[in-house]
């Protein structure tokens, strides 16, 4: 094992209680499952990111903050409105989808998209600063405990310790993604949305309500972000700065996966999550971020359309 430096936030993902130094295989599997769990979260964020990018050419640099904020809103509504937790989750998520699905589209994207892609991308950077600082000054600068709605115990199966929470995260996220995939390919509404994503002009000619479809992707993006937030916050704790890492990994997952596919973003997210977890375990905790970054640069150099993307579909 490489020497580790103390890192309070990250340390929580490192599962020391699961790791049995005498069984390298069990240790590897524990890290693999932890990586798949965080990877599923990155995938949720990456899918929303690519959906919004496809339908409206919005590069959302605030995507990480989109995953950070719902948990903060949930905690804030529990604290300030005195709601019970289940109610607070509902209120927080609905408020988030209204503000950052509907509101984001209406207030920021719609007035700005006519100025081109560049000012809009910069406006999302400004938005990320507003969200991050808002969470810090409006709620708390400290990491807050977030209740888990998933089983938290660890089971031992064939000599391997498995955290049920990680397994549950993977299952919930994958169900959500499968549901989305079914919606996009299997329902009329979803196919209209896909048509809008692929070619808005033709979709308009075919009588598809393009504006509503674009709005739908923004709502789905906010919904996926809220789900990711509720899943990850029990592990990472809810903190204003969580979005930095999550956002970075969501971008990497989207590019690695191919920028234009749900399954690409899913695979990209899982790959990045596993690489991150294994890099932290076997290479270096202080440089764990560097390994996915190197992967990103290699992908851009070698296969810029992504592992699962087709080059001809890339439009700018």
């Amino acid at each position, binding site marked *: 094992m490489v020497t580790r430096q103390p890192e309070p936030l990250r340390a929580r993902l490192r599962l020391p209680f699961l790791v049995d130094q005498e069984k390298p295989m069990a240790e590897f599997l524990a890290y693999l499952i932890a990586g798949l769990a965080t990877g599923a979260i990155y995938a949720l964020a990456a899918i929303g990111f690519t959906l919004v990018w496809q339908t409206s050419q919005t*590069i959302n*640099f605030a995507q990480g903050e989109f995953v950070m904020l719902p948990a903060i809103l949930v905690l804030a509504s529990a604290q300030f409105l005195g709601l019970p937790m289940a109610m607070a989750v509902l209120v927080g998520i609905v408020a988030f989808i209204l503000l950052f699905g509907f509101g984001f589209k209406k207030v*920021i994207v719609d*007035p*700005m998209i006519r*100025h*081109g*892609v*560049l*000012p809009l*991308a*910069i*406006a999302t*950077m*400004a*938005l*990320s*600063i*507003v969200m*991050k*600082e*808002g969470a*810090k*000054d409006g709620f708390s600068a400290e990491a807050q405990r977030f209740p888990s709605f998933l089983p938290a115990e660890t089971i031992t199966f064939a000599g391997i310790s498995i955290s049920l929470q990680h397994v549950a995260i993977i299952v919930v996220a994958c169900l959500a993604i499968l549901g989305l995939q079914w919606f996009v390919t299997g329902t009329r509404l979803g196919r209209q949305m896909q048509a809008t994503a692929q070619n808005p002009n033709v979709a308009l000619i075919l009588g598809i309500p393009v504006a509503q479809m674009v709005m739908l992707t923004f709502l789905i993006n906010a919904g996926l972000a809220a789900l990711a937030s509720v899943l990850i916050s029990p592990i990472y704790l809810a903190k204003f700065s969580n979005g*930095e890492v999550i956002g*970075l990994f969501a*971008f*990497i997952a989207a*590019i690695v996966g191919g920028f234009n596919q749900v399954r690409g973003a899913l695979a990209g997210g899982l790959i990045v999550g596993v690489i991150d977890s294994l890099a932290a375990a076997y290479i270096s905790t*202080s*440089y764990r*971020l*560097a390994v996915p*970054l190197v992967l*990103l*640069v290699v992908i*851009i*150099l070698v296969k*810029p359309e992504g592992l699962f993307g087709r080059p001809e579909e*890339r439009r*700018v």
Partner: protein
Amino acid sequence: MSSLASATTPSRGLMRRIDGVFLTLVLGAAILWFVPIGMGRYGTYVLSLWMVMSIAVMGLNLTLGYAGLKSLAQAAFMGIGAYTTALLTTKLGLNWYASFLLSGAGCFALGLVLGFPALRVKAHYLAFVTLAFSTLVWLVLRNEQWLTGGVFGLSNIPRPTFFGLKTDGALAFHRFTLVITLILALALWWMIRSPWGRAFLALRENPIRAASLGVNIRTYTLLAFAIGSAYAGFAGALYAPLVEFIDPSPFALSASFFLLLMVVAGGSGYQLGPFVGALLGVVLPEWLRFTGGIYLIVFASIVVMLLIACPQGVIGLVERGWLALRRPGKGGAA
């Protein structure tokens, strides 16, 4: 200049604006030479910081405003410049001028290395490559304690001497910073007016037409990014002796976002924009001190509103108003 100017300049109005830029730069520098007298150490320090940030924003303005590239590593390049200068002057005892040039040259070379593969693909991939680079630089600054001092940073960075004159005092260093800023601003002004810069403007106005006229888009955008990065290196080389202590935090990714906001707030693609943007980004926090920590929110919100109302920034807004006043019929000369 005149033959080239008449061959490619669309109107005399543009020429007038450029001369206005030159006059404003020189006059502004003359005023700023005397302004800090009686302002005290801290006020002078804020003015110097404004100059230093203006240099970094000027460079980013070249990348974003003229070449249309999103670089998310401007603060990282500034960090490289600051650490290079700090290490060379404290550990190797090199003089500041050589360190300054090496900082800029190093960032220029890194810009070429980063930009070449990214721009080979698609312009917006540069955003993601620089995003990754920014994080990597921050990791190295934080983790490589033997070199960078880690989170404890580097201290006792000496201030340069100017022909034997020490610039240890706040006012002396302010004037020193002012001279360097003026030189760098005039260099950029000259660059943009040169044939090279004219090709550049053509590229910004209509890339396809520029390419059909024989402008090599990739070379020009790559050079713009590298020069923009070099300016961040220069800014860092001035930042280190200004604050005399550096640690990794001011060079994190969010600082790069903040620099981009300064570019668009001032007016991207306008030569005086960076000074306005940096003024908003550096001096506004001082005015908003009474609000506590929320100045960042206020600044970012102002930028979003400005972008919605007028994507050309403050200078664009002023120009729009000026044109509306002068010639009610004619608008949008920018």
